[in-house]
């Protein structure tokens, strides 16, 4: 079968063309060795049938970023029979730079001038015959809004197949970076001069909106409002659906499976594995679906309306202090709702280093699952000032996130903040269909990749639970928590922490289901011990879902490093807090005071050692 690659600059409507040709159906994969999504679709039209591969949006093929490396390697692999180069008609000059590079590579190519309707509206006149002749590659002008575009592109492709493809033979005359770029742009200027009449600036309308949205005084407040809405709609609206998903999937995959298996007299062990194990794993996975879909839906709206880039433009100055680009604000914010979508949102960051830094910082943001734990403990132990205690925990998390960011930025990745090169796209009315398709695509990726880890892990934990092994585990590990004020007869607290690995909101449920002792008594009426416990709840390993999501983004080694780092950090801080406030056990204080810097040093050394491979 014919293989067609689709390439072009970012913001050229490349994915619109991809969706148009593949009828919106795409399979998700990964490019080898990198976390860049690989989209594969199929073009079917009458007798025509081809495989379509979407390349990441790029400006050149200098292997500067993962994206460019992926694109270059794929084109050189010889797999694609034809390249569709998508260009934005309203920004031809810059877009043509990539086209000239493809020509120099000698790949067989069809140049698709996209958004011809916008160009016509802006009175940009392109003489296609002359343009094609000057450029030396076959050209077609389309608009995704026009119904015949798909057919026209396919007809053109078939024409090229039959014509046995002549490729432009263009040889640059220099190997010097500057001279080569100048030579390419000279060529482009000639093509433009011969065939394109410049229209009115597309920025006139745009500037009117930007005058308010990006103004000195309103820029930041508007940004904060938009972010608040993003957070509110994702977490609150998504939260409304969580219980329904939980109940529906629980009814089918846990209770339903059990009912069916019991009715056909399956042995209990098999029922337990399929129902309490796999079933509850699927149930846990399902609770993330509404939030993740909504997050990507709203992020898609921001992205395609043109605001996302502006948010990054506004926040860059502030986030840079932590060594992160402006865009990294979004995962941090979403982290207060749920770490899982927050970690997935790090994929929008261009550099691996920024993604790693964010993945280290996100879990310190107190997620929605931790809040009920805080509130319950705080109202029991600090009835007078529960709100202050909860706020103190949130603040501790934020401070530790920033400290972690500064630590990693200052020591591990010093000076390697990627240069900021970005385009603020024109404001654009988003297509709800395209945004929905994209959100569903990301949701599918989540189910496939994260579910693969999450379901088995939860299945194993669920089995341990139903086999009554949790009590044994709790009694075994409770001693580890003794220095932070958890006495050894309070093993239920240890079990609660263990079950918190599934999802942190289960901590309360697990605790109260195991003991009828009032909470004050269990913690020996010590509010210091209770606060230390909450500190640990804030900091120890994020739930398995977050760990699975992070493993997908940055790999297992770093996720284990992060989990160890945050857990030991949590233990040390909880111990220091409890012992200084109440326990006064010198050996415990010394242990924590020594372990803390050792851990930090360990993380720094490891990250530094492996850091060479990430840049």
């Amino acid at each position: 079968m014919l293989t067609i690659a689709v390439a072009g600059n970012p913001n050229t409507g490349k994915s619109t063309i991809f969706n148009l040709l593949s009828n919106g159906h795409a399979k998700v994969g990964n490019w080898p060795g990198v976390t860049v999504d690989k989209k594969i679709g199929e073009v079917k039209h009458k007798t025509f049938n081809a495989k379509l591969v979407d390349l990441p949006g790029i400006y050149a093929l200098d292997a500067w970023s993962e994206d460019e490396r992926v694109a270059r390697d794929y084109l050189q692999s010889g797999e694609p029979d034809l390249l569709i180069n998508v260009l934005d008609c309203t920004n031809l000059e810059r877009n043509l730079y990539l086209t000239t590079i493809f020509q120099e590579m000698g790949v067989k190519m069809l140049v698709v001038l996209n958004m011809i309707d916008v160009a016509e509206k802006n009175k940009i006149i392109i003489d296609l015959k002359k343009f094609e002749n000057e450029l030396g590659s076959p050209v077609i002008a389309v608009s995704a809004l026009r119904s015949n575009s798909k057919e026209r592109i396919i007809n053109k492709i078939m024409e090229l197949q039959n014509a046995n493809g002549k490729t432009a033979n263009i040889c640059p005359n220099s190997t010097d970076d500057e001279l080569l770029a100048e030579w390419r742009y000279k060529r482009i200027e000639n093509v433009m001069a011969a065939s394109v009449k410049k229209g009115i600036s597309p920025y006139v309308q745009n500037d009117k909106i930007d005058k308010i949205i990006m103004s000195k005084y309103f820029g930041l407040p508007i940004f904060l409002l938009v972010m608040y809405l993003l957070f509110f709609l994702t977490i609150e609206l998504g939260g409304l659906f969580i219980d329904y998903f939980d109940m529906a999937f629980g009814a089918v995959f846990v209770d339903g499976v059990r009912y069916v298996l019991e009715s056909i007299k399956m042995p209990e062990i098999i029922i337990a594995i399929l129902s309490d194990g796999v079933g509850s794993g699927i149930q846990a996975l399902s609770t993330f679906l509404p939030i993740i879909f909504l997050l990507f839906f709203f992020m898609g709206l921001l992205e395609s309306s043109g605001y996302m880039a502006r948010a990054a433009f506004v926040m860059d100055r502030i986030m840079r202090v932590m060594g992160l680009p402006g865009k990294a604000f979004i995962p941090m914010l979403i982290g207060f709702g749920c770490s899982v979508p927050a970690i997935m949102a790090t994929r929008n960051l261009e550099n691996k280093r920024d993604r790693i830094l964010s993945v280290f910082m996100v879990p310190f943001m107190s997620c929605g699952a931790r809040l009920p734990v805080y509130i319950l403990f705080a109202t029991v132990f600090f009835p007078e000032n529960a709100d202050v205690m909860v706020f103190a925990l949130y603040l501790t998390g934020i401070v530790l996130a920033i400290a972690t960011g500064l630590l990693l930025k200052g020591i591990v990745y010093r000076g390697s903040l990627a240069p900021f090169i970005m385009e603020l796209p024109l404001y654009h009315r988003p297509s709800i269909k395209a945004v929905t398709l994209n959100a569903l695509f990301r949701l599918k990726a989540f189910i496939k990749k994260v579910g693969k880890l999450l379901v088995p892990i939860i299945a194993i934990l669920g089995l341990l639970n139903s086999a009554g092994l949790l009590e044994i585990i709790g009694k075994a590990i409770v001693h580890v928590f003794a220095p932070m004020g958890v006495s050894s007869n309070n093993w239920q607290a240890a079990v609660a922490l263990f079950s918190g690995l599934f999802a942190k909101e289960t901590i309360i449920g697990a605790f109260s289901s195991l003991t009828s002792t009032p909470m004050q008594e269990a913690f020996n009426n010590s509010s210091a011990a209770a606060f230390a416990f909450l500190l640990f709840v804030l900091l120890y390993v994020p739930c398995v879902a977050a760990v699975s999501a992070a493993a997908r983004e940055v790999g297992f080694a770093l996720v284990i490093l992060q989990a160890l780092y945050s857990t030991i950090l949590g233990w040390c801080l909880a111990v220091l807090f409890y012992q200084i406030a109440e326990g006064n056990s010198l050996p415990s204080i010394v242990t924590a005071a020594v372990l803390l810097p050792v851990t930090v040093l360990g993380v720094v050394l490891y990250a530094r050692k492996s850091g060479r491979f990430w840049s």
Partner: protein
Amino acid sequence: MSQSISSLKPGDKAVVERYAPDVGRDYKLKLLALGLTKGTEFTVVKVSPLGDPIEIELRGYRLSLRRHEAEVISCSQ
């Protein structure tokens, strides 16, 4: 008079003169690919509400850069 991009104000027009010799090759390749070749005219159009980054218009499109990073480009007004 040759000066750096970061000293320009919104509305200012300038022409790219040369790159600082110590510019990182990756960054330079990127800027070149984006059309900031010698002799290219550009206009500063926007400054972020917090003063940085800035947005310039060249070759019929617009590009955002951080002030201190863009200092590697000398230009003349």
